């Protein structure tokens, strides 16, 4: 290897099999410092499974995941400690804790407190607790949730729950943030606001890998986009490369009828009606 510096995240040949099903097949991907990378693909393409492989929820059947040139241990809490944070496709907040407490939990790995120093309530405890709270409030300001700090997470409206997930993920001071469909279910204005937020996060020096279905969102944001179809990465590149790639068009829209028709005629005459 003669490259200058190793990329922030380097995924090499990751394969994930569940019994006979290969959910992710030999996917390689790199994310550089300060990059925003998109990951798109039809439903069931294996995008979330791929995320789970990165964050230690699944141990890939084959392949390696290296972060800052160190192979990641297959334990979620150690991956977070290493500096990768994520949000979820289906919101997974701690519903019965307050907004502030959710962010404080996100800060878990960046604070130290033994059970004994907590019981004794020494000066170390007070300092650490105050620092954590200040940092958490800062993140709530950043995401625009500061005035709701004491609300229970489950009482927030949907869009703000998504923001809170991002604030909670940022609390662990990540170098790489994985966003799993951050704009799912959002209206166009909210989506634009989410774009702004993602840019603001990148400007903090955090790289981002994002799964999305909203193509405009992806192409506005991402330096590069990878397309996953049936577990395989079929193409990766900038907007033009991805949009003009025939395999991508086929995966999303199906094969054009002119091409499909003659092939179908050769087999069974009834096929064209079925291929809808």
């Amino acid at each position: 290897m003669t490259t200058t510096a190793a990329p922030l995240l380097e995924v090499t040949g990751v394969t994930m099999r569940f019994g006979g099903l290969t959910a992710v097949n030999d996917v390689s991907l790199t994310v550089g410092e300060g990059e925003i990378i998109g990951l798109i693909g039809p439903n069931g393409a294996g995008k979330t499974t791929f995320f789970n492989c990165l964050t230690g929820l699944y141990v890939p059947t084959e392949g390696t995941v290296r972060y800052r040139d160190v192979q990641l241990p297959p334990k979620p809490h150690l991956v977070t400690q290493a500096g990768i944070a994520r949000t979820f496709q289906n919101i997974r907040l701690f519903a019965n804790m307050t907004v502030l407490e959710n962010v404080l939990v996100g800060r878990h790995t960046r604070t130290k407190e033994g059970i004994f120093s907590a019981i004794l309530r020494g000066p170390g405890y007070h300092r650490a607790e105050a620092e954590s709270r200040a940092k958490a409030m800062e993140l709530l300001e950043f995401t625009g949730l500061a005035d709701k700090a004491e609300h229970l997470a489950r009482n927030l409206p949907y869009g703000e729950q998504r923001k809170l997930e991002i604030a909670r993920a940022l609390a662990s001071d990540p170098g790489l943030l994985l966003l799993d469909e951050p704009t799912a279910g959002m209206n166009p204005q909210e989506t634009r606001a989410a774009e702004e937020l993602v840019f603001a996060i990148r400007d903090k020096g955090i790289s981002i890998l994002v799964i999305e279905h909203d193509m405009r969102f992806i192409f506005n944001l991402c330096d590069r986009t990878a397309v996953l179809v049936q577990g395989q990465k079929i193409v990766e590149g900038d907007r033009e490369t991805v949009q003009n790639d025939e395999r991508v068009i086929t995966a999303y829209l199906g094969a054009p009828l002119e091409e499909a028709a003659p092939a179908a005629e050769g087999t069974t005459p009834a096929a064209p009606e079925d291929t809808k």
Partner: protein
Amino acid sequence: MHDLPQQLANGLILGALYGLVAIGYTMVYGIVQLINFAHGEIVMVGGFGALTAYLALPGGTTLWLALPLMLIAGVLVSTLTAVAAERFAYRPLRNAPRLAPLITAIGLSIFLQQLVFSFYPDAKKARVFPKIPGDPFSLGSVTIQRSDLFLIIAAPLCMLALGWFVTRTRSGRAMQATSQDPDTAKLMGIDTDRIIVMAFAIGAAFAAVAAVAYGLRSGQVDFRMGFILGLKAFTAAVLGGIGNIYGAMLGGLALGLAEALATGYIQHLPGMHLFGGGAWKDVWAFVLLILVLLVRPQGLLGERVADRA
């Protein structure tokens, strides 16, 4: 009804004891959804740990000096037993079907009973536990045994400390997060294995406090004491809403009051003279449980939870 204040006091004191033990059931259930049926025996070994410390002290030691040492010994024995149980009996079954750890817990309970029965000197019958000497003291019409002072002081202190720990500290918040969603908690950087050990340890420490209180009250400990105490405490935990720490204490107090009032008054009700007195108190305790669960299946403070997806 002239002795109502006395009955209420008796009920609250007994209830606080149930509540302390119930904390152990509820914390472990809240984190790993395991009903740790060996928890009664964790109480029992704590009692024997405290007794051992007492016997090891020189003869004339006053109880005020001995009590803290007994407490430390009890907490140590209970906690180590519980942590070892988690490590060697429950953790290997973490991903097994729910019934497997449940059966293990029952097995562990019998194992611990027999261990003490067979190897602790003279444990074949009840061993004498020291009492706080001195006459009972009176507050108006209420008489309180000196030995119960320990529980009256310890139970509220323990609850305050636990409430503060869970809501105000990093580890406590991690514990709440783990009980709400363990997978997400892991992804927030929480070592959930450590949190599980912590839940067992805290429950065991409370069990040891309860064991010392039980020993002081009844003047004895024996290898079977954990069974009925554990069963009552489990009832209290369910009554209060299992998984909720305040519910456990509330359930304990409710159960204690119900027992005291049933013992004192049921026989005075018309046609019920056969069903009063101490012999029937367990029956009324479980009747209360059934009634509460009919109206509120999730318990007094429990939340209705949909099945985890």
